[in-house]
């Protein structure tokens, strides 16, 4: 029994195999694929970020300065698609690929070849999407939500964007199936479901959301495609269709999607805070139930994105109260993070700083979400910069900060070297200050009535836009520090990481050497309950 997997395995166990191309293109090792995902998402983070820089440069002053309005609209549309499907989601899948097998004591992901396919689809999908920028008739300009009839009025770029979205969807679905199969089947003996690290739990629930809603998006964009090219009238009013129906179908996908981008972040932060507070996670089971409740509620609140379409009063009231209900499990999570820190012996290394910033700034984004949930108020906030500020607080200082926290936290395990704590902290403080300079004024712009997705604006909005743009350039430049810290740690750092890396770290991933060998847990580990990240479960 102790030699379970050894019989089947004829690989060299320690050296990285094969040549460069064979290793990465034919990769089936979860660590290699995790690395591919993370590198790809970092690249896309900069592609999407450059688009944001163009947007902020144009909005630096009122009037049209740098780009044509059509190009501006392409930038807002592509920035969203690239950041959501290219940066945030692949980063989480990459972290999941790397850490889930290590955290549950599995030798690899359950379906390694599918894992390879789900990664290698992505570069092609984004090549297709980004190539529309260079096509005659330009790229998609109707916003990432692709609302018809506007989105259909573009050229053939719409078809490229739709097929790219299909590919991204297939990639995420395969990634999700792999993660479900790994978590449910590949856990080491003794790693019961309720002993799993919270990051693994958050990914299990996220994976179920993914397989339930990505196909709905695929359906919605397929309908757009047939409306445009094959004469159907799902959303075409002239043929008896209904554009509002697109919004319902889209947001039935879209609302779970926004939780797909935050639940794994909850998981990462729930790993980091106990480590640096040197206390077990407070309310481990409550945290799991909170994630599950948020996931369930995400399916029944979608129409709060479209309060202004002219819904009956009953519908507006229902979606308003159901939306506000989400604040309850989310509040449980925030209180549990705070209680985990309470009377802990805290230290403030870079991952902890990012996790703390996450807790505070995500909560601000959550509160502005509650404001948006109030129907009568939403009629003013709808499609203004208030919405932009809200979802950037939850996505940038939420999801992206958690990803960075996770990257700093696990980087020594991945590459075997400590990153430069000094430059990590400089990156953190530069990011956290600039991101607030960037997004906080946008709340005021929105309340004053500045609409989103416009290249020009009333001079009344000039000052706050200039402040926001300065914050934007500063935040963008700060991320070059992030790349610098990573490159230094991987290739140049002389400071070797220990096996446990962090004094307070608990969990299986810290029982393998740093860097983690190419193959780990070929013999299932023995689970020591007192070494679990969330403490001894028998208590």
């Amino acid at each position: 029994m102790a030699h379970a997997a050894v019989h089947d395995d004829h690989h060299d166990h320690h050296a990285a195999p094969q040549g460069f191309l064979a290793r990465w293109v034919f990769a089936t090792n979860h660590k290699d694929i995790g690395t591919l995902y993370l590198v790809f998402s970092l690249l896309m983070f900069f592609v999407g970020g450059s688009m944001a820089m163009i947007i902020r440069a144009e909005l630096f002053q009122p009037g049209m300065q740098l780009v044509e309005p059509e190009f501006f609209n392409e930038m807002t549309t592509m920035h969203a698609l690239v950041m959501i499907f290219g940066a945030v989601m692949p980063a989480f899948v990459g972290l999941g690929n790397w850490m889930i097998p290590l955290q549950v004591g599995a030798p690899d992901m359950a379906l390694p070849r599918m894992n390879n396919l789900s990664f290698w689809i992505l570069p092609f999908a984004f090549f297709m999407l980004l190539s529309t920028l260079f096509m005659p008739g330009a790229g998609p300009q109707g916003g990432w939500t692709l609302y018809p009839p506007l989105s259909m009025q573009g050229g053939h770029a719409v078809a490229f964007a739709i097929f790219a979205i299909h590919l991204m969807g297939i990639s995420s679905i395969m990634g999700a199936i792999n993660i479900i199969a790994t978590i449910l089947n590949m856990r080491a003996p003794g790693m019961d479901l309720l002993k799993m690290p919270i990051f693994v739990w958050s990914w299990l629930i996220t994976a179920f959301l993914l397989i339930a809603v990505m196909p709905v998006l695929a359906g919605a964009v397929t309908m757009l495609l047939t409306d445009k090219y094959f004469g159907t009238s799902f959303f075409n009013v002239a043929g008896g269709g209904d554009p509002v129906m697109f919004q319902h179908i889209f947001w039935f996908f879209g609302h779970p999607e926004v939780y797909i981008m935050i639940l794994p972040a909850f998981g990462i932060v729930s790993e980091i805070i106990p480590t640096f507070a040197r206390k077990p996670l407070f309310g481990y089971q409550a945290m799991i139930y909170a994630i599950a409740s948020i996931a369930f509620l995400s399916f029944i609140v979608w129409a709060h994105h479209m309060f202004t379409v002219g819904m009956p009063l009953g519908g507006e009231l229902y979606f308003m109260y159901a939306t506000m209900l989400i604040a309850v499990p989310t509040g449980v999570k925030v209180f549990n993070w705070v209680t985990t820190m309470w009377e802990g012996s805290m230290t403030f290394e870079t991952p902890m700083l990012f996790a703390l910033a996450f807790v505070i700034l995500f909560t601000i984004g959550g509160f502005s979400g509650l404001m948006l949930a109030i129907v009568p108020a939403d009629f003013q906030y709808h499609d203004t910069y208030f919405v932009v500020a809200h979802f950037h607080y939850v996505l940038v200082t939420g999801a992206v900060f958690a990803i960075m926290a996770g990257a700093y936290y696990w980087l020594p395990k991945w590459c075997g070297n400590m990153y430069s704590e000094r430059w990590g902290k400089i990156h953190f403080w530069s990011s956290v200050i600039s991101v607030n300079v960037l997004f906080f004024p946008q709340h005021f712009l929105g309340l004053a009535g500045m609409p989103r997705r416009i290249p020009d604006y009333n001079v009344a909005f000039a000052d706050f836009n200039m402040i926001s743009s300065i914050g934007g350039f500063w935040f963008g430049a700060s991320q070059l520090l992030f790349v610098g810290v990573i490159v230094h740690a991987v290739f140049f750092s002389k400071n070797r990481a220990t096996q446990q890396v962090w004094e307070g770290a608990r969990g299986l991933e810290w029982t393998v050497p740093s860097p983690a060998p190419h193959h780990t847990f070929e013999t299932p580990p023995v689970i020591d309950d007192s070494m679990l990240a969330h403490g001894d479960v028998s208590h």
Partner: protein
Amino acid sequence: MSHNVAQTKQRDVRGLAKVAGTVVLASFLFGFAMVPLYRIACEHVLGIKLAGDVVAQETVAAMEVDVSRTVAVEFVAGVNSRLPWEFAPEVSRIEVHPGALTEVWFDATNTAGSAIVGNAVPSVAPSSASLYFNKTECFCFTEQKLDAGESRRMPVRFVVDPRLPADVRTLTLSYTFYENEIATRRLAATAHASPSLAQH
């Protein structure tokens, strides 16, 4: 023994992947099922009439005229930006008794140099009152073909249901005319085809 464990695991993984694949397929189909579900939810749960279908004369005849109150009905007409038509109601506002059959007229003119087929899409505001607005005859029920420069007077006959809630004092009926691209193309094709047929 260890081989069996590995094989069982592999079987479990396959089974699980199949279940997950089924969920994916079901979700994809659910996306399309939302098309009829949307209609059902609007018409039977939320009480919004989406389609401006014809209401039988008998249903309307059975309604009693409520002379104790009047409801203002306003008419709005517009054309989609791609359709070179002019389109307007002859009166923009009338007062009617609920239950009384009323007739109003709309005028449309094709200002383009060729024949175009259009379809009008009706909408009633407030949407909660749409259930109580019955049309027995409407140009929106059929395609409208206008030759180059042609004008047409088109009738709408409607009855406001006497059960209309008392707090609704004004109803707005709006029409937007869209070009029916498929029918227009077919029309153009037959127009071109006929002369060549005559030559044979």
